[in-house]
């Protein structure tokens, strides 16, 4: 299964191309779509580790009235139809939207229908999957270990990295895996923001949709099975890898 560059194939030849590779488990375009899904999920997970950690920390520690509204905004993507979120993001990132103006001013061009546009949209869409497990993990630590660290001469930032992060490590693992898998499984937002450009925005979930649209059920089956097995194995890992409940220390 050599990864050629099927993205450059003209659209009309796609079916023919798939037929030629009937004997292979996955076609090159399938592999490209999978690779794009994983690249997107990996990038989003990294961005959210940097972005979601401070938000989760703040939500876990603050007693201010802002906690409610911010917590609700973070949780919105859980209940909002992806098309709604995608629509607003599309407008915001468009030539006349605030984000669009900003990216144009910065010389980045427009984000919709690009890989980085997908990343930006997915960061919003997967935010709760990073923030909520982290927030729970930080809340479970409580104030005490940080107070102990302070009495042992650790500044707040020092205590965060040497006490809070190690103690919340299972939370980081869970949050990262959930974010990654959730981004891999994304469909609606991708379609709204990214469209369907092979090699740029056509991720695995969109590829399956394409296969079904084109009545290529065999290919759809194969790719869907890969996604199913992948998701199951990852979730199995999350649920099997549960450290023993901490005894009181």
């Amino acid at each position: 299964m050599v990864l050629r560059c099927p993205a450059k194939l003209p659209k009309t030849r796609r079916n023919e191309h798939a037929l030629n590779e009937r004997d292979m488990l996955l076609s090159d375009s399938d592999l490209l779509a999978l690779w794009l899904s994983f690249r997107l999920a990996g990038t989003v997970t990294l961005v959210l580790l940097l972005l979601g950690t401070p938000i989760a920390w703040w939500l876990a520690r603050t007693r201010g009235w802002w906690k409610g509204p911010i917590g609700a905004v973070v949780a919105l993507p859980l209940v909002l139809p992806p098309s709604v979120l995608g629509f607003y993001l599309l407008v915001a990132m468009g030539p006349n939207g605030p984000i669009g103006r900003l990216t144009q001013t910065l010389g980045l061009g427009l984000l919709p229908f690009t890989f980085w546009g997908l990343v930006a949209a997915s960061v919003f869409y997967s935010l709760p999957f990073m923030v909520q497990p982290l927030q729970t993990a930080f809340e479970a630590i409580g104030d005490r270990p940080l107070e102990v660290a302070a009495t042992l001469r650790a500044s707040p930032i020092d205590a965060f990295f040497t006490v809070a992060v190690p103690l919340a490590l299972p939370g980081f693992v869970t949050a990262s895996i959930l974010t990654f898998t959730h981004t891999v499984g994304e469909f609606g937002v991708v379609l709204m923001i990214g469209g369907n450009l092979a090699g740029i925005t056509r991720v695995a979930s969109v590829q399956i949709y394409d296969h079904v649209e084109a009545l290529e059920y065999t290919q759809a089956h194969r790719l869907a099975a890969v996604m199913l097995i992948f998701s199951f194995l990852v979730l199995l890992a999350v649920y099997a890898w549960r450290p023993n409940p901490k005894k009181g220390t």
Partner: protein
Amino acid sequence: MESIHACFRIEWSRFCLDVDLKLPLRGVTALFGPSGSGKTTLLRCIAGLERAPHGRLTVGGEIWQDGHHWVPTHKRPLGYIFQEASLFSHLTVLGNLHYGLRRISTAARVSVEHAIELLGISHLLDRKPDRLSGGERQRVAIARALAVNPRLLLMDEPLAALDLKRKQEILPYLDRLHDELKIPVLYVSHAPDEVARLADHLVVMETGRVLIDGPLAETLARLDLPIYLGEDIGTIIETTVSAVDNEWHLMRVDFQGGHLWARDSGILVGRRVRVRVLARDVSLADRLGHSSIQNVLNGIVDAIGDDEHPGLALVRVKVGEARLVARLTKRAASSLALQVGKEVWVQVKSVALLE
């Protein structure tokens, strides 16, 4: 300037703290009171874990908090021991001990070996906290606090979360701290026996205010205190072991003004030992007679006060420099015609050696 001057005012919806205290910067000072009396909050204010908006705190002349300054907890040279050991569960015992040690200046570093030896934890260093017993954890927590070479040690009911057996396991180590440490200790407790055993100075608190503050022996002998001690009212006497009677397994302890016999507990002759005499174990007589009670002292009635129950009185007797309190019925006090200045015989049924 060798004192802690703490002045805090906090007004929360359900709790107020209003204290203005001057505490000695040496020995063990017990902050004593029922739960909700504000003793832990006061300790947390001193540590900087709680920030009283109107507060002033100087320790040995150094300002830790006033209207313009606020020294954050991690810059205060203190050690803090919480009620639960609160060890870092991701580190071994040694990792816990080194956590603070690595963060202090090399000049301030002392050997952590001393703390390890003092708390008897050298065989536990490689273990993770979840492999320790409750008592062991608290010993590690104490060693960890000592490892940063603090100038002030704050202890928040370090024994309260432990059962009696674990308490007995830790108390000898606290005795050693008391005897060997040169740094002042603030010790929060609601257990009279711990206070009598460990403290040199006593602060009694209630509903966020300081009721009484003074040297331990003097404060325990106050008759306006008993309501907080109940059955535990009693006084302490600093004594020296002077003789051992091997035939009867007894030990004689001397103090200025007399001596007492106690069960021989193996303490060497010449050692100083603190003795606690509970008011319910003291009776008074106006003449000497034959009795099963071996400890009879001659003293002068110093003060008479009411006990909680209307039928009971507390009578304080001065024996040399020591003071003993007897709990009597008011009828007995009346039939003995007790009054301040009267000479009486004090019969002590039992004494507790606090060592």
